[in-house]
């Protein structure tokens, strides 16, 4: 029902595109489905005491958004069991389903609620996961994400990331009304919250490894400066504001240091800044552009962009300094490298004939694979489980966030509120 309402709104917004100043809810499509996805049915949860989106709908959407599951259409469900009733397994087998999720929302302590759900293996006809998730009525979405995390972990063996967040910068308005907003939101684009606004650009948000702070670049003083801001208190500190560029902050895996780009000594070079003391050491020494450093998960290596060879390519260097090694050779433009959480691959912006796309390189084979297909794709960021890459795209005049699976088989747009979307970052 809500789903259909969403679709109608989408149509409505498409039609309204000719009338100005309209804000509306919009739905988002899956741009590319995945082959070999696991068939699973999520039976609508009974939730008489919880208005709004059904918990099961959010669970199904989360699972679908990974590209690893094929969700059975609600209209095709052969039955709708509600716990404690168990599914009639033969009819689910006939319907081609390997797994079935059933659940309901019941009253908990005080004003609280509890989502009870059971995940069944429909082939063997057994329960493989049965959990109770208590939650406040105002927090139903996060309860649903938690359930999706549990199911995802049970079926894939990997950590689910549905309760993580994304950070991005949205710019809107014209002339003197131009405004830049640093925003964090759930990975489905919901629950967005503005961290800070400025009439001057904000760039390159980067999450601290504990997820409690963001480092970013702000031009609010009509000069570039790197700030660190606590998300709980809002307290912020200017950690670098030297002459020239102060850019591309990237937290070390232990959260004590930031790699930054500074041009105080002439050309942009990579430095490592100890956040607590302000102590700094220089990592690269070159007259060319060196920027966009990102740490390997073990904290030993930085990957960065340099045009020391004439065109921008990725290089690696010890975080303590030393001789950089060139990493990329495919094409004339490779930039913004980021290590995968397991350290085995590096995602990047790869420029080619068709535009600027997100690519990933396997570090053992050095094979480069292009994952996205836009003209102006930027700002790759791995999900904390390494299975998806978040990025920004500009296609058809619409700026948006998007995710692509690391095998490139599955893509999904995450449209978020307003304007030019840039600088995507995925929380730990």
């Amino acid at each position, binding site marked *: 029902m809500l*789903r259909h309402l*969403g679709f109608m*709104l*989408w149509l409505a*917004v498409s039609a309204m*595109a*000719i009338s100005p100043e*309209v*804000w*509306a*809810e*919009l*739905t*988002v*499509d899956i741009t590319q489905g995945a082959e070999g996805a696991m068939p699973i049915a999520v039976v609508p949860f009974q939730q008489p005491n919880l208005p709004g*989106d059904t918990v099961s*709908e959010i669970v199904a959407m989360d699972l*679908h*958004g990974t590209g690893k599951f094929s*969700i*059975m259409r609600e209209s095709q469900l052969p039955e709708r069991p509600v716990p404690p009733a168990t599914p009639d397994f033969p009819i689910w087998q006939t319907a081609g389903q390997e797994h079935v999720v059933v659940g309901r929302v019941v009253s908990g302590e005080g004003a609280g609620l509890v989502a009870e759900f059971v995940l069944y293996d429909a082939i063997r006809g057994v329960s493989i996961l049965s959990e109770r998730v208590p939650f406040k009525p105002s927090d139903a979405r996060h309860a649903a994400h938690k359930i999706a995390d549990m199911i995802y972990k049970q079926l894939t063996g990997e950590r689910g990331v549905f309760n993580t967040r994304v950070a991005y910068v949205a710019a*809107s*308005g*014209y*002339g003197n009304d*131009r405004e*830049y907003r640093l925003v964090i939101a759930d990975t489905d*684009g919901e629950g967005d919250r503005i961290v800070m606004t400025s009439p*001057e650009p904000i*760039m390159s948000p980067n999450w601290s490894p504990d997820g409690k702070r963001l480092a970013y670049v702000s*031009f609010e003083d*009509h*000069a*570039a400066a790197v700030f660190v801001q606590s998300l709980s208190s809002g307290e912020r500190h200017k950690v670098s504001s030297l002459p*020239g*560029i102060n850019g591309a902050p990237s937290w070390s895996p232990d959260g004590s240091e930031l790699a930054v*780009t500074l*041009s105080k000594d002439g050309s942009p070079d990579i430095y490592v800044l100890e956040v607590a003391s302000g102590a700094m050491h220089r990592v690269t020494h070159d007259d060319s*552009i060196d*920027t966009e450093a990102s740490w390997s998960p073990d904290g030993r290596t930085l990957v960065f*962009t340099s045009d020391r060879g004439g065109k*921008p390519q990725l290089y690696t260097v010890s975080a303590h300094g030393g001789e950089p090694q060139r990493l990329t050779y495919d094409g004339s433009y490779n*930039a*913004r490298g980021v290590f995968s959480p397991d350290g085995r691959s590096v995602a990047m*912006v790869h420029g080619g004939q068709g*535009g600027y796309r997100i690519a990933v390189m396997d570090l053992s084979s050095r094979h480069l694979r292009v994952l996205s297909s836009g*003209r*102006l794709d*930027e*700002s790759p960021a791995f999900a904390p489980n390494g299975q998806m890459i978040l990025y920004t795209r*500009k296609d*058809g*005049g*619409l*700026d948006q966030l998007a995710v692509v699976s690391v095998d490139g088989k599955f893509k999904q747009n*995450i449209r*978020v509120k*307003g*304007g030019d979307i840039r*600088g995507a970052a995925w929380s730990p």
Partner: protein
Amino acid sequence: MQKWIKVLFSALLVVSVVGCSSKGGVDENADSDAAAKANARNRSGKYGKYGAGGANGGSGSGGRYGAGSGRQDAGPTGGVLSERVIYFGFDSEEVLPEYQNIVTAHAEWLAAHPDSNLVLEGHGDERGSSEYNVALGERRGLSVSRSMRLQGVSDAQMRVLSYGEEKPATSGHDEGSWQQNRRVELFYPPH
């Protein structure tokens, strides 16, 4: 079944894009300055600009949004000194011959007014990685400042500030727009 997620989205964005693409080829904000003329020949005419309706404010930089729209500028005006924008080729920081007269005029004025200061704001187009574009924008600013230094301007009078692709002069996603965005803006901050 799960093909659609509900998320909030601003239709304003759609509107602005539709508005731009449906706009006529005439740029209402183009003023008569030579830089705008020099660039006008490159304009495809099929893209519009943000900042319609008087954001120009006599800054000599054409219709725009972002820095400088209507801001106070303590610099000289009159003739070529009213020009404030120098445009660049793709992936280049070379000051093209057609803009050399602007650089020279400002350099001579600054050399004669050693108490005045200039901010050289470097910008790039939106292609590629944003932090790399900040570095490219700085290179363009340094290229102009180097030329001015050779013409007698003191380093102490000049500051380069690169915004990369963060403050585009125009909103389009085509070569015509990109040409407008690869630029250095000269800004004389008020005392």
